């Protein structure tokens, strides 16, 4: 058991790092609003795939990394990711037997919840972002979920 969890940490950390890099990759301004939350998807994947390897810790620290990189209030993304990561962990057994379409819908709900927590903290700390385009990211993210499953499955096989 111990050995298994230790083996699983490396792809976890690596995929999180790659997703973090994708989160700051410069994109043209037009495409930027459509950028899906890669790191969030990766965290969800690990929460569902192997919750006992520390999916929730991954969620918290990934969120902290996003806070630092985005330069927002420290703890904002950490809070959102922790809550939604816990929800994903809670739903994991059901998600695993869902069809791909239902999986995407669940992921959409999770991503929307994530955006909502961010939105709420933004408002509560006094710098609201009111553009509607922030609600696009959950859509794109949910559409990307099957692709991510494929890629992560490949990573996992190694």
């Amino acid at each position, binding site marked *: 058991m111990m050995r298994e969890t230790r083996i699983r940490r490396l792809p976890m950390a690596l995929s999180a790092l790659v997703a973090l890099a994708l989160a700051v990759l410069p994109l043209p301004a037009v495409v930027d609003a459509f950028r899906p939350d890669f790191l969030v998807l990766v965290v969800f994947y690990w929460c569902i795939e192997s919750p006992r390897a520390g999916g929730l810790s991954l969620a918290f620290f990934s969120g902290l990394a996003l806070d630092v990189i985005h330069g*927002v209030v420290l703890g904002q993304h950490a809070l959102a990711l922790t809550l939604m990561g816990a929800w994903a962990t809670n739903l994991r057994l059901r998600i695993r037997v869902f069809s791909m379409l239902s999986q995407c819908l669940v992921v959409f709900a999770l991503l929307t919840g994530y955006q909502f927590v961010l939105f709420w903290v933004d408002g509560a700390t006094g710098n609201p*972002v009111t553009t509607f385009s922030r609600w696009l990211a959950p859509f794109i993210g949910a559409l990307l979920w099957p692709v991510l499953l494929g890629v992560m499955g490949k990573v996992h096989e190694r």
Partner: protein
Amino acid sequence: MVAFRSTEASGRTTGLLFRCVLYSLLALALIVVDKRYDNLGKIRRLLSVVAYPVQIAVASPFEGWHWLRDSVTTRDVLRADKTKLEAELRVAQFRLQRYEALEAETQRLRALRENTAGVTDRFVIGDVMNVDLDAFRERVLVDKGASDGIYAGQAVLDSGGVFGQVARVGQLTSEVILVSDAAHAIPVQINRNGLRTVAVGTGDTNRLKLPYLPTSADVVVGDLLVTSGLGGGFPAGYPVGTIAEVKRDPAQSLADVDVKPAAALDRSRELLFVWLKPQAAELLPPPKPTPVPKK
């Protein structure tokens, strides 16, 4: 269809609720402390050092591409550039002839008013890092930080005019908030008649607003806006933008004025961090020699 393979997930995750509550409370505590007490500057500075490798890793391919493109330009292009730059330099030198005299005159006049605020002392040039911060906020990351003496609130200019100010300082990097950010405001005056007001960002890179001018205010399209130096954050007299549109609705008491920023907010890659003289004398060690820009 199911792509998950481990059987481990079917086990119980003991204490999920406990850990969730713990982490959430931790995150909430961080938010409150960061927002209310602003005590996390040090921690944030350290964390930004940890984030630096990721940012460098993302930015370096683009830097490499720029470098490659620069290094394979042909001789002809370089010659053309050189001729153009020489011509520009001649014009600039011609304009500069009067500068010393004008500067001295300004100093005298300021001394008369016992007001030396807004005179720049020294500057440091920083490069914008090829990293996207937040799609919904107008911010850029620059490769100069606390170790270069950058401080929060410092004025940042580019070759066209006022670019923004330092929002947050890391050890090696700093975050600059653009004048066009919706949370940014800068004291300005109209160069033609000295009318003072505040220019507020809109969240749109190519537009600022003057929301506090009465309908009867003397503004016309094309007026140059310069910093007024009031508030002490920015040096006085640097261009902020030109008036692009003035909408006067007689039913409203305030005019609706749009400004086109003078700085190339979406294109500039080299930024000038400036120190103001009075503050510099009090707060900073004796000025180091100004670093020469790389190019």
